[in-house]
């Protein structure tokens, strides 16, 4: 392989030939502020395609904001982000998004299948209705997460884990190249946790990229390849085995290191999840 020069210029349109080296997500000098209070400050990182990436950090570290800012859902004060070398706005068709489960009202009068269908609304386009083809896709996605039997179930009658799986099915139906997930493992039962972990591995096998906000430090090495450690500023971003270290965890969580973190540390000292 010929060495490519390391330059700071953003990739140009002629860079199509170097596609493999284009990062899935590149964030540059990224600052997000509510009024004058920065929530994310001067963050830089580039994430390669085909990895499972965890974004971790203490409460209020800007993890969810990071996802939303990348997707263009909250205004950015400074810096830029590119998805496969283009602005996120132009890449909507290859991006799947799984918001936090609490972000919607599950008493909404609709069923699981319909929620999954919503993932395809973007592709269907304005005004047109989803047809049989979309319906079949949505059913297949539900079956994929083991929820086919619940397709016609009113969504408020599903358990938390089942609701989360419906959300994942919705993202699957989008057939995206890059997935953003906001705390997919939050508050789910053991069955759902296993199902989600399996799904992530499967997405990786198919060359997809997943970027997920994650709160459980103990499972980071088990479920993810890469990790982005945030606490207002970027502490570290890189492969788990390189950057998921005690020092970086201290820098990320500071004095807020709790029992959970200590457990993760002990895990690391023993040499990873197998210890």
């Amino acid at each position: 392989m010929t060495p490519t020069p390391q330059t700071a210029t953003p990739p140009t349109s002629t860079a199509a030939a170097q596609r493999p080296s284009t990062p899935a997500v590149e964030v540059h000098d990224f600052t997000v502020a509510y009024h004058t209070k920065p929530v994310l400050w001067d963050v830089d990182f580039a994430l390669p395609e085909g990895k499972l990436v965890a974004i971790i950090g203490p409460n209020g570290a800007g993890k969810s904001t990071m996802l939303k800012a990348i997707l263009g859902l909250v205004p950015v004060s400074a810096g830029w982000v590119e998805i496969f070398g283009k602005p996120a706005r132009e890449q909507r068709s290859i991006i799947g998004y799984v918001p936090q489960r609490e972000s919607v009202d599950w008493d909404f009068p609709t069923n699981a299948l319909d929620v999954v269908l919503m993932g395809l609304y973007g592709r269907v386009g304005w005004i047109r209705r989803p047809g049989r083809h979309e319906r079949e896709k949505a059913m297949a996605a539900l079956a994929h997460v083991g929820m086919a039997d619940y397709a016609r179930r009113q969504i408020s009658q599903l358990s938390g884990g089942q609701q989360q799986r419906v959300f994942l099915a919705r993202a699957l139906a989008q057939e995206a190249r890059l997935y953003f997930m906001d705390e997919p493992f939050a508050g789910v039962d053991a069955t759902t946790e296993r199902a989600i972990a399996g799904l992530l591995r499967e997405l990786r096998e198919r060359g997809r990229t997943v970027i997920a906000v994650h709160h459980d430090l103990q499972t980071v090495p088990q479920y993810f390849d890469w990790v982005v450690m945030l606490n207002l500023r970027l502490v570290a971003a890189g492969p788990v085995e390189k950057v998921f270290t005690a020092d970086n965890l201290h820098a990320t969580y500071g004095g807020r290191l709790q029992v959970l973190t200590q457990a993760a540390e002990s895990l690391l000292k023993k040499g990873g999840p197998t210890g």
Partner: protein
Amino acid sequence: MTPELAIILTACLTATACAIVGTFLVLRKMALIGDAISHAVLPGIVIAFFFTHSLNSLPMLIGASLFGLVTVALIEALSRTRRVAEDSAIGVVFPALFALGVLLISQRAGQIHLDTDCVLYGDIAWVPFNTIVVGGVNLGPRSVWVLGAVTLANLLFVLVFWKELKISTFDPELAAALGLAPVLIQYLLMGAVSVTTVAAFESVGAILVVAMLIVPAATAYLFTDRLWLMLTLAIVFGVLAAVSGYFFARAFDFSIAGAMALAVGVWFTLAWLFAPRHGVVAQLVWRARLSVRFAGELLVAHMADRNEPSLPVRALAGHFRWREWFGRLVVRDLLRRQLVRLDKAEVLLLTETGRQLAREFGREASAANSHDR
């Protein structure tokens, strides 16, 4: 068209137009925004009246509706400053605009035919006499035409943007991520609410229109888990309230608008009490059944656990401190589910099904326990 038919038709069209947009207001938890818009269009109505000298003309409809959008924009701008919460912002904006409207009316009341009573409480009894005449041909009451057009427009709006309305109501973030412009949809909806309110004020009044916007949709919400059915039922309840309200008013010589708004409330109360699944009575029955069922499972698990395959019914009161009638209900439920048998001496005997259930019950209980760290 008889006067009576004209009034009923106007009221039904008002109810339909309101229910269509009201369904989405209820689902978006924006009932108060509907209230605010219905009040804040008043200055728009008055100002437009100064220019056009007529109610229910097209420029009037559009001009006044703009005030509805201004209201929404003001509320959002105010709450975005984070100095006031959204409910306070609503409370600040709409009384101010409404007061402006009242002020304008009272100042010019002598010169023009527009009085506060008409605007606030509606004047549906006069609707039959305000007719459209084109080339000497009487086309019938103006309000029927206007509200018919608004109903049709609302229907078209939700049919065309059904999917966009649904996703931006359920999950605005996803809608934005997919490029389906939830903010634009929001303002289109608010525009539709404004137009509907302005068109409806003459029949039910600026204050009571909120009853037609919110209550039928809230009633329908108690009955169904499907969006299109909720919308349909909202229309049905609105029309039902309009018609029953009209006859109620005529029978007792009440204000028609008042009676209709009251009827909406009565229908809601009935639904709230007696709706098949979400109603209060249904919930109480369901909860009572569940507690009897659970008590029975406890009893079976207890018998299996303590190795007491037989237990006299008389002993229940002593063991569990259950009231006698409750114990009887529990035993009856257990017998029906064949978890126990009853021998001649009124002694409960665990069946094989009962034993099996007890084992599952124990497993679930310990699983729940280990999750609860």
